[in-house]
């Protein structure tokens, strides 16, 4: 688990796949009960980041000031239930480039999803990633244009703009569907979880910050979990 916690989602998802399937085969009874929901909140006590451009003394004028960027957490099952690793439904998602920021800052998707990167700014952007999960470079393109990338491996993909160094975002690619991105209030809900015992992990800004054991009873229902990130 230490290795999983250090590296975050990529290794956790990949490494726990075999273990989860084996556990399910051994128990053989997980599919019998009603599905439940894991809900709760993540309170982020660390100061939220104002993502400013690098201070440039070489500028002839002031750069546009930017608001505090909302950086949510992602909560997911570190050990996923049976059926979780069936070929997920492939879909599309979008990460906009607006006001020199990626919107949303965090995108959580399943393997096979294609992500569109539209440019809504008047300036050029150049989306790229050096991540092992998916390295790509979309080149420069202008407002109104969009390019897409399909993510076919689970893991964490950190995304940057080659022109604006203050732009960054994360795409978390899961091999299962048991994850949720927290809303503005920090709340989350993972629905349709089969009965069983799992490890629930919370990820924020590149790291797994906390984990917790949760159990969905055979009768299903809701299980609450609250996290605090300092």
């Amino acid at each position: 688990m230490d290795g999983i916690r250090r590296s975050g989602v990529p290794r956790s998802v990949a490494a726990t796949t075999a273990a989860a399937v084996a556990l399910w085969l051994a128990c053989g009874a997980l599919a019998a009960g009603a599905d439940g929901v894991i809900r709760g909140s993540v309170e982020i006590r660390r100061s939220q980041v104002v993502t400013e451009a690098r201070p440039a003394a070489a500028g002839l004028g002031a750069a546009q000031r930017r608001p505090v960027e909302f950086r949510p957490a992602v909560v997911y099952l570190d050990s996923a239930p049976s059926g979780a690793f069936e070929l997920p439904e492939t879909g599309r998602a979008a990460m906009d480039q607006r006001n020199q920021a990626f919107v949303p800052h965090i995108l959580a998707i399943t393997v096979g999803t294609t992500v569109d990167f539209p440019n809504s700014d008047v300036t050029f952007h150049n989306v790229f990633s050096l991540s092992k999960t998916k390295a790509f470079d979309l080149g420069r393109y202008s407002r109104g244009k969009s390019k897409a990338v399909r993510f076919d491996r689970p893991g964490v993909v950190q995304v940057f703009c080659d022109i604006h160094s203050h732009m960054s975002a994360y795409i978390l690619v899961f091999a299962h569907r048991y994850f949720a991105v927290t809303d503005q209030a920090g709340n989350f809900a993972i629905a349709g979880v089969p009965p069983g015992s799992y490890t629930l992990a919370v990820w924020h800004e590149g790291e797994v910050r906390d984990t917790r054991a949760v159990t969905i009873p055979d009768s299903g229902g809701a299980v609450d979990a609250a996290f605090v990130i300092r």
Partner: protein
Amino acid sequence: MRLSSSPLGAAALAAGLWLSSADAAMAQHWPTEPVTLAGGRLLIGGDASVTFGSDDPGWFTYTDYETSAIRRVRAGATIEVRATDRIAFLTEIRAETGAGVTPYAWYVRVSPLASGLVDIQAGRIPPVFGTFARRSYPQDNPLIGSPQTYQYLTSVRPDAVPATADDLLKMKGRGWLVKYPVGDQTPHNGVPTIAAERWDTGVQVRVGPPALEGSVSYTVGSLSDPRVGDNNGGGQIAGRVAWHPVPAFTVGVSAARGVFVADNVREARPDAPPGDDDQRAFGIDAEASWSRWLFRGEYVANSWSVPPLDVPRIVDPLGSRAGYVETKIRLHPRLYAAVRGDVIRFTTIEGSGGLDTWEADVSRLEYGVGITIRRGLLLKTSVLSNWRDGGRVRTDHLGAVQLLFWF
């Protein structure tokens, strides 16, 4: 203005930058963003680079008598304090081998309008002329060397001038160490056409939206001799208008005129006929980009006027024409290639031996690649081939490697 001359200054500042960034932002992560404190009121960015290149016996890459641009360790920190939404204080501190720690820039920026259409900067400010001197060193430079307009040392000095055309011609191709009979007798390096390694002191105003903006400045020095304090009782006015019709293209037109020759020259020769003693320059710059390609180019027509003293006299301004074009293409998310073609040509003067260019023409071709090791850590390598129409060493093929880090 040096705060320290310690040879370890660059390394110490680099270490300090690293620690501050790691502590303030993401202690367990490689820093990829500037340090932002006090709700965005205090911003700190930094960079550090180590450059090692082959020996340069022709002094093609030197930025002063002791420093080659392809052999140095350098670190810098840029700090912006936003006192209010309209007023900010900026400073850029640099440390490099042979130069200690120097406040490269320090000025106040006032943005009087909420629309952001006007900015006023006062202090040691960035030059408005051209573009290269304002590129944040070194990550905005796809190669290791600088365009010759901004780096190559000519045989002109502000504090010492030739008495005759022959004095000037003797120094042809020897801009790294120049000595003239009038003014300061100490051998010293000449100046580049536009100094990118130092900034001038004065006031600058920028007006307009990004699509069409104009900037004008009044400073105490000149393009080739930016100063903190005045040395000739005259200032420089410079301006640039930039048109940015579409995201893919920017074109700019620049002009500057300022008094260049220092007072000590005329004090040494009070019999010198009155003259402008100034530097004048006109420039055009352009940048275009599309997909994985980036193109840039600049052309600068420049002249220095020096007092016509003894026979054979230097009667006309000493002119230069310089230009470069460069392109960069990203071949892979981690790899790009770049090339720059660069020439500087000089006008002729009449010496005892006849008509000749007053300085040796120089051409340079630099090409190289950059490899992104990780975000904010770039390894560059390039080859610089130099050709000069004069001087002791006329051809010099140099190799260089640069590792740079920034956040």
